[in-house]
Each structure stands twice: as C-alpha cells, then as structure tokens.
C-alpha cells in the first residue's frame, strides 16, 4: 500500500512522497525506512513523519533498545574484570566500558564502581556486528554530565517513544516541572530513567510525572505539572497530621 506523511504505516508499505520527488535534493531516510532500487519501504509499524527539509522516519512504539552511535544511555554495571566493565544497556548484547574512559582516570587512579551501580554514558561504537562500547567522557576528556549516577536516586524503565518525547527540545515537561520541584534526572535513550529529588515522595512524584507524560498531549503538560504539585502538597500535609 502506498502511504504519505502522517499516515500509520505497516512493514512493507511503500512511501509515495519520496518516489515522486524529482528535485535534486538530499533525502535522509531515518529509522524504519529502507530503500530498495527506486522504492522506499517501511520496515516498522508506526506513524510516518517528516522534518524539513527532507528527513523521513517512522515513529514507532517499542520497548526493546537497539543501540545507535552517539546516543546517551543509562546502563547497569554487571561485571568488573581486567580493564573493562560490562554494562547492561537493555540491548541484545552487553556493552563494554573501559575504566580509562572516565574523567581523570589513569592506570593507577581507577574509578570507584561496584557491580550494580548505574552509569550514564555515551555510545562510542554501535554497529550490528560488534559489541557496543561506551565512554563517560567527551572528546576533550571532560566528564560533563556523564559518569556514575548516585545510588540515592530511583531507576525505572519506560517505552522508547516516551524517552524521545521528553528529550525532544520542544517538550516543556522538564522546564515546567523544574518551576516547582528540585530534582536531578538522567534519561537514557534506552528507556531507562534515573531520578533523584530531596525526598522519597518527591522522587516518586517526578517519576509519576514522567510516566504520565506518555498519555498527555503537549497542551496537557501544564495541567499535569500542577496536578503533580497538588498531589505532593496533599501527601506532605498528610504526613504532618
């Protein structure tokens, strides 16, 4: 079946718009689209989207993470051995993280990481035939926001589409939440989110807000945030009684 931008597509559908373009311009096919000869096929189910000038992709709902180079992920350290850590990032294979890939780490000065700790890292290598490789520094050797996540916070998982939604530059969720709450958050593209706030109740409230954002339209985010604030006030007043 032929589909155009904005439609729900199924695997095997052909995209009409792209084949009819005759202008000489670069077309980028994002995730979920594949070209065979002159036709472009969708290979995922979802909504076909287009961003200007000519980037096409399929926005799909999924929970299983497929690593992509350059994405930030939250991983769980599962093994310590020799000079690398094995990190579970929710992909089909565990990723490796060198102990030298931390800010200020040298052969003598190793980072203090235990099995079961969380790291926020960037994917350096992610190809389908190789083990993914993580780093916790940028190209200047600085840590920036990457590194070990404190074990005080809370970890939960959500769908990949929700992560894309809240990490989108246009998403007002974190800005609005930050007006009333103080919190730290690390959202990995692999569907894992780490949250830390001052109290347990606040942490749970932030997590609720993030999970509820999946069902909220862009205009409903404001109401969601005020609901969260009200809930917290009620809970705190309830504790005082």
């Amino acid at each position: 079946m032929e589909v155009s931008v904005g439609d729900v597509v199924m695997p095997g559908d052909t995209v009409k718009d792209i084949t009819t373009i005759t202008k000489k311009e670069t077309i980028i096919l994002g995730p979920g689209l594949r070209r065979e000869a002159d036709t472009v096929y969708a290979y995922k189910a979802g909504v076909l989207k287009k961003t200007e000038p000519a980037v096409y992709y399929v926005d799909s709902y999924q929970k299983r993470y497929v690593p992509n180079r350059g994405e930030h992920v939250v991983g769980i350290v599962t093994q310590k051995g020799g000079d690398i850590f094995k990190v579970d990032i929710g992909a089909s294979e565990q990723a490796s993280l060198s102990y030298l890939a931390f800010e200020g780490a040298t052969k003598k000065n190793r980072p203090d990481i235990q099995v079961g700790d969380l790291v926020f890292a960037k994917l350096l290598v992610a190809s389908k035939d190789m083990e993914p490789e993580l780093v916790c520094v940028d190209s200047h050797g600085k840590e920036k926001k990457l590194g070990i996540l404190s074990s005080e916070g809370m970890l939960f998982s959500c769908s990949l589409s929700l992560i894309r939604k809240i990490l989108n530059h246009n998403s007002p969720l974190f800005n609005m939440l930050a007006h009333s709450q103080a919190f730290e958050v690390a959202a990995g593209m692999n569907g894992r989110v780490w949250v830390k706030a001052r109290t347990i109740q606040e942490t749970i409230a932030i997590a609720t807000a993030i999970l509820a954002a999946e069902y909220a339209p862009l205009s409903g985010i404001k109401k969601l945030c005020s609901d969260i604030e009200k809930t917290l006030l009620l809970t705190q007043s309830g504790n005082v009684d």
Partner: protein
Amino acid sequence: MKEVLLTNCEKNFVNKSVEQGTRLDGRSLLEARNVKIYFASNWGSCMVLLGQTRVVAQVTCDIQQPKTSRPNEGMLHINVELNPMAAQHFDSGRQSEISILISRQLEKCYQDSKCIDLESLCIIADKKVWNLRVDINVINHDGNLIDCASIATLAALSHFHRPDVTSNGEDIIVHPFSEKDPLPLTLYHYPVCVSFITFESGSTVMDPTYLEERVGVAQLTLGINSYRELCSLHFNYLTKTMTVEDVISAVSSYATNYAVQLVQQIKEAVNYDVEARYKKDDRNTNRFKECIMTKKLTTMNSECISIKLRKWSEIENIESDVDMEKKKEETENCTIIKPGIGSAELIPNTNISFGEGGPNTWNMSESSEEEISDIEITTVIKKEENKTIENIELNGDSEEENIEILETKDLMQ
C-alpha cells in the same frame, strides 16, 4: 535471556521508602492490588489480573485408572507453566525452579488440604475415575505469581463443570453437554494464598510487586480458606538475614480477613457467571473480551502508570468524588436491606448490634443451602451469645460445633 541485575539504586530506594511506609505504586504496606476475574467461553477457564500480573487457568478432565492406594478417588493435577512472554528471564520448555515451587505450593493448598470432593469423581471403583488437570499459564509477571495463580485455580475449579456419566451395568456412557446438564465439582472449602514480603528494616508488605520481591529478604505465603483455617504455609529466606522475626503472628489475622474477603469476591464472580450461563444470558458478564478494553490515551489513565503516590489518584478523581461517595452510601444501605445475598460487606454491618441491622439473617440459614458462608453465622453468634439462646438452638441444626460452644456457655452461666 538473563534477568536484569538488581541495581543498588533500586535496592536502596525501595528499602528506604518501605521504611517510611511508602510504596512505589501508592499502596499502603498491607494493601493488596485489585483482583479482576474474567471467564472464557467454556467451563473452568478463567483469566485473573492482580495489578499487572496476569494468569490464565484452565481445568480439563479425562477418565483414567485410579491409583491403587486410593481406588475410589479421583485425581487432581496442577501444572504451572512459565514462558518468556511473562518475563524475559523465564525459559520455555523445561520446568524451572520457580514453576516447580509455585505448582508445589498450589498442590499443598488445594490437593493436600482436600478441598475437592475427590470421591465424587469416582465412576467405577478401582477401574475408572475422573482425572482433573489444572493448567496455569502466566501471561505477565509483575510479582506475586503465587497469589494470582491460586485465585485463578480456585475460580477455575469452582467454575468447572464435568460431563455427566451414567452406567448400564458394564458400559459407562459419558453424556455430551447437549444431552445432560454438566455437573459442577464439590468443594468442601475455598482456600486462597496470601503472600507477604519482609524487608531489611523489618517491615512487611502484602502482595509484593516484582521489584519488591527482588529487594525483600523473607517471603511468606499463607494458604487460608473462608473458614479462617490455615491450609498451607510457606516461609522462605531469600538472603541471609537476622532481622526477620514474628512475621507470621504479625500478619496472620490481617491475612485471614483479606482471604475471607477475597474468597467472597471469587465466589460472587463465579456464581454470577455460572448463573448467566444457565440462563443463557451473555450480557453484563465478565468474559475474556471484556478485558481487552480499548483504552483512551489520557493522563487520567492511572492504571497504566506503575509508579505513583497515594494521593495521585485522588487528584484525578476530585470531580467524581462526590458522586462516588453517594453511590457508596447507597450500596451500603442495599446490603443491609437484602441479607440473603451473603456478601462480605454484611459482616461489618452486623456491628450495629443485633436486631437493628435489618431482618434476622439467622432464620434464613435454615431454608437456604449450606452455601451461605459460615463466617456470617459465627459472627452473628458472637454478637448475641447472651441475648437469645433459644433462637440459636432452634436453628443451629446445621452446625454441630456451634451448638457445643453455646451449651458450654450456657452451663457456665
């Protein structure tokens, strides 16, 4: 596939929040998740939802030769299957340790407590008996599989009907459902499992989720029937710990009350569905198709959100709150007016002291079947022990034990 490692961060957070009396999904420590029961189109098949945990049970029967040790009794087998659909770390094919554990616990609860009248399943002694088989499939795993599986087993067993059998001397004839009405099984009592998890801090939570099950240090499962009798008990340390003491005595009375309530709910659901089948009236029943509800994607859909604060749902329901309260009052009134139903809500209502709470339920029990649960009767007795002894003696013929208790009371006075 391997189970995802439990992170230090989750462990700390759950321990700390339980210590403060908060649970991640907004429940209080001793609060269970909602139970939903859906029935399939054939007898003895149901799906049970306990929060996000989902289990399907199916009872089947065939004719077999009995065991030589028990020639005049039917047989009951319980089989639990866990496949990767429930959780990624479950292997398909071979039986894992956890599935053996669950099926053994269910066997203890249902087979060893002799809740089913197996003698009525005998067709020809030493030759042919009915063999019941309960197949339990876990569809989704979000903790507390054993409770969910036990609810499903009980609902399926009490819903199941076997074909009628007649014998003409030598041959036996199994009648299809079109020829003779199928017969239900006889259950002497209705046991369910109620599970608890104890944490390092020493606090115990009821109906644990998957995360809580992984963080906890000790696990307790009580099998309790509607007569408040213990049918099975399973206590297990998950790690080496010294902090756990006196869990059983602390939670047992609470567990009993919950079990009574739960059994009542299961019975009502089963009775409702069975009646609807007899009347061939398929409206307003809880069938499989009802559990596949098309959900609207709104923020109000708090059921999908696994992490929330207790007051979160209150905020959402603020508008409808007033109506809800009104309805609640109405339903409470209804239960007082209609005492014959025998619902769980009746028990607190009898606290009003006897004689004020509507018509006398006591005389009703004479005419009605044994089905009406004995808890009601015993509670009523407690209330009026000193007032009307004659009345009890008149109607107490259904229960021998009760008479004895009252007579000793009588003597003491």
